[in-house]
């Protein structure tokens, strides 16, 4: 089944971010003044663009269209996986970077409002690799990075950096969309005993450290028994 939805629910930058490791065609219908649009994309790179059925080969025209679409918040989309050799291959445009280019704070607040994190949600670093950032976001990043290293929320960050909370929240949203930060998982902070195993629950083996079964293993045993008999 395809990934589908409406831009009223997901800003375009999030749709692209979600599909960044996919290869296929993202189709839009009735988006702004466009009857139909097709993004042929691979690893969040725009390789081909069709506007109302016509192929666009000019990179600048394609970038301008992306920036125009970044502000549109109504239009159905659907993504279908496709092999790379089925895609048009005229362009090479980093979609996330283009969509995160600077706009006014009011525009961004308006565009992203429904998708912004709670101001109390704590974020931390996700990667050491910096992707392209515009000047304002890069400036914010240099100030915020030391604080984000240990996990911090928007309200505390705004207070520490003496910045407007709205601007901080939008910047955190953009850094997250760029894959630079991620929400803290408190569970991982408290203790991290077997995190590598937690990613693969199916192969977890019982821990032979005590003769008596743990409570969770007893609960699991009872649940599996119910599953077998139901």
């Amino acid at each position, binding site marked *: *089944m395809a*990934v*589908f*939805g*409406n831009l*009223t*629910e*997901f800003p375009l930058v*999030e749709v692209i971010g*979600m*599909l960044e*490791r996919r290869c296929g065609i993202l189709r839009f219908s009735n988006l702004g003044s466009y009857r139909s649009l097709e993004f042929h994309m691979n690893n969040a790179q725009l390789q081909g663009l069709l506007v109302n059925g016509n192929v666009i080969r000019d990179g600048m025209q394609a970038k301008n269209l992306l920036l125009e679409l970044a502000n549109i918040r109504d239009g159905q989309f659907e993504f279908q996986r496709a092999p790379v050799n089925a895609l048009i291959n005229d362009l090479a445009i980093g979609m996330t970077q283009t969509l995160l280019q600077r706009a006014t704070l009011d525009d961004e607040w308006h565009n992203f409002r*429904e*998708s*912004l*994190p*709670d101001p*109390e*949600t*704590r*974020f931390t670093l996700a990667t050491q690799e910096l992707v392209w950032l515009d000047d304002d976001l890069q400036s914010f990043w240099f100030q915020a990075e030391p604080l984000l290293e240990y*996990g911090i*929320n928007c309200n505390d960050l705004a207070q520490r950096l003496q910045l407007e909370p709205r601007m901080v929240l939008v910047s955190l949203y953009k850094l997250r969309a760029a894959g630079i930060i*991620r*929400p*803290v*998982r*408190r*569970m991982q*902070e*408290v*203790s991290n*005993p*077997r*995190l590598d*195993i*937690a*990613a*693969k*629950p*199916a192969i*977890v083996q019982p*821990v032979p*450290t005590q003769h008596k079964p*743990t*409570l*969770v*293993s*007893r*609960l*699991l*045993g*009872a*649940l*599996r028994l*119910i*599953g077998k008999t*139901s």
Partner: protein
Amino acid sequence: MNESKPLKVVISGPVGAGKTTFVQSLSEIPVVNTDETASEDIGKATTTVALDFGMLTLDGIPIHLFGTPGQDRFDFMWEILCEGALGLMLLVAGDRPQDFPHARRILEFITSRIAVPFLLGVTRQDLPRVWEPEDVAEYFDLAPEQVIGINATSSTSSLLATVRLLELVEAYDPFYAENLQGHYDFGGTVIKSVKKT
């Protein structure tokens, strides 16, 4: 330590995700339900306004099942209920992507502040046009193992999801439940006296 002391599992998610149905499909007592006529357009006639409460006894240990209200104005209850929980099951309807941003906001708010093991359940997997769990995992930026497809109306499906949640708890810390039992004590004696008819 009294090993029959109750534990709790919290079932959260947006309106219409299937929380009440999930609790009903697991509970061995009649679910205490606080559905009321919806005062705003939420796509159905009634909705949970306080919480759903059910109970499941496993190997003599009562597991309290708390279904939270889905409407935004009850967000504050999610965090309160998750304190001291054995696990959090967050449900989203796979055919309602419009609910994903709100659900992600809540999940991240809770899990960045409270240390609670969680599983994301994508309901309505029986429908033809529905997001698959792996696609929902991408949106929520979670490992695929932390997301499961559910048909909440099927008790088997709900049981399997609960098994997966407990596997995550066990993988995290095999003695997690023992540590919790000293921190959660909610009306076990009274509730044990209620029998399903």
